[in-house]
């Protein structure tokens, strides 16, 4: 994992329910920034979050949140925020009143709670609507209130569980922008739980991939895509001859659309391409390096166990 201040750490963490192992001896650290936690339903994402929040006791291992054992210190939650995936908002109170109450419930004095509620509503784009009952809000606005209640007490770290669930494309864009803003402008580190790789790729600095209770992958988002960078070539003629020439040079090449996709992007690859083009007399139309999306990466190859 990258360098930086360690905010959460799991050491040989396991959680077993009667017949189900939700987390199996996993270890990882989460540092300052936006970290994505990816996995299918039942992969162990929610269990990990609940352990870090001190809501579940691990069967074995240690989970530290902001340096404290989460399952032994309820007080650490004054510096943690959580945005649940499911509905959690009262319909009959205004956003201003609800946020003030949530700030107080996080330990802020009443006057500070009111000021923080107003500030947070302004930063999440709900200031104009703050006195309307939440029941009348759109789905996008409700997601913003959910995010706002997680931020209202100015936590050091916030857990976002599927923050884009149920949003239309515009709402999703706005929510992802807010998540980025949460770290960039507010200085609050984020654990972004999602099963949508595109959201994680666009928002996060690092990812942890959980599958069946195991950490299958962890590291920088950029590194994943960098490692699997490809070069895409289109030629006007002699494509098959070019492909043969490349394969003869030991280059991994696949047909993709109307062109060829070559694994790797270092200098030797370009040298091989140059030589193969000369040999096959293929007139070059286009040559471009390309990064694979995370989605494509996980579809193409089973990820390596960390």
């Amino acid at each position: 994992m990258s360098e930086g201040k360690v905010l959460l750490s799991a050491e040989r963490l396991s959680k077993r329910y009667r017949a189900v192992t939700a987390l199996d001896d996993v270890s990882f650290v989460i540092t300052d920034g936006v970290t994505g936690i990816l996995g299918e339903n039942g992969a162990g994402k929610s269990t990990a979050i609940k352990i870090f929040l001190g809501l579940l006791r691990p069967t074995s291992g240690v989970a530290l949140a902001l340096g404290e054992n989460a399952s032994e210190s309820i007080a650490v939650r004054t510096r943690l925020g959580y945005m649940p995936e499911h509905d959690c908002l009262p319909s009959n109170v205004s956003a201003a009143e609800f946020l003030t109450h949530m700030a107080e419930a996080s330990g802020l004095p009443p006057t500070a709670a009111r000021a923080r509620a107003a500030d947070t509503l302004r930063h999440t784009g709900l200031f104009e609507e703050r006195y309307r009952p939440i029941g009348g809000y759109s789905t996008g606005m409700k997601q913003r209130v959910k995010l706002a209640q997680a931020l209202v007490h100015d936590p050091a770290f916030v857990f976002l569980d599927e923050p884009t669930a149920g949003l239309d494309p515009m709402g999703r864009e706005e929510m992802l922008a807010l998540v980025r803003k949460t770290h960039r402008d507010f200085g609050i580190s984020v654990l972004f739980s999602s099963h949508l790789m595109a959201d994680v790729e666009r928002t996060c600095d690092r990812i942890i991939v959980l599958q069946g209770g195991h950490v299958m992958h962890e590291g920088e988002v950029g590194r994943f895509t960098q490692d699997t960078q490809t070069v895409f070539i289109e030629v006007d003629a002699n494509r098959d001859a070019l492909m043969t020439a490349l394969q003869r040079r030991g280059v991994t090449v696949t047909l993709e659309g109307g062109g060829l996709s070559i694994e790797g992007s270092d200098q030797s690859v370009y040298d091989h391409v140059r030589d193969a083009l000369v040999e096959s007399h293929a007139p070059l139309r286009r040559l471009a390096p390309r990064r694979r999306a995370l989605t494509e990466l996980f579809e193409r190859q089973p990820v390596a166990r960390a």
Partner: protein
Amino acid sequence: MSADATRADLHPGVTGTVFDIGYRNYTGAREGIRRSRLAVYKDGLRTALGIGRGGRAKILPIGFMVILSVIGLIMALIAGAIDRYTSPGMSRTLNLPSHSDYYGIAAMILFVFAAVVAPELLCRDKREGVINLYLVRPLSGSDYILSRWFAFLTVILAAALLPQIILFLGLLLSDPVPFNYFKAHWYDIPKFLGAGSVMAMYTTTLALLTASYTARRAYASVFLVGLFVITAPFTIGLAQELGGPAGQWVSMFNLTNIPLHVSDIIFGDVAELTKIAPARQLGPTVLSLWCALWIVAPGALLWSRYRRLTP
């Protein structure tokens, strides 16, 4: 020309400037778990009384408070009028309803009030998922339910004691020499405080326990009203039919009478509702312990339901 002078020339009459001060981190006090509990308690009070909610949310709690207070006021007015237009002390000679009778008269209204309002404190949080947001804050399930219990206890105490205070003040002021009335009847104050507290703890615990089993307010309300209204005639009829010790124990399950027996013991008087209850013959110790059991056991059950709650 300076920049300020230029701005003033271009926008004459403009006196203010809007600054985007950006995000400000909170550096003030964090009061921890104590503040969190207090916040849930305060929210419980506001929810029960409909404060900060729409107009409809206020109708029922305020309406019940008014009805209960009006009962106390009418009792005070009748006693005052009789004393004024006949002779001082005549109301006591006529044995008109007073502090010891109030809970017997108002018990059913108090129970219905609890049945209607208590589910609002728990059911909505459960149905709308707000409980999940409390549990990720520095609050345990125990903190949540205890704060809610104390909040509703405060409201029920207010509903139980306010009419008694009105009645006491009414009787005090209707006396030609209020100080003499106070000197002669001050001991009514600890009595109605004690009886009211027992009534409030009993009502609060049973109402919240019932509410904890459902996310639908209407179900809890109907069940509670049914519980209090139906057990009374059913146990009275069955107790009379059985007679003897069996009848006395069946009579103990008249849920309306359980706190009223304790009220009778505190006031040293017997209310109209409990006069015919065979359970009276079991004596003050059994009746007091029975009432305590009906507060402690449901309370423990309520606590155990929330103690290990996780989102």
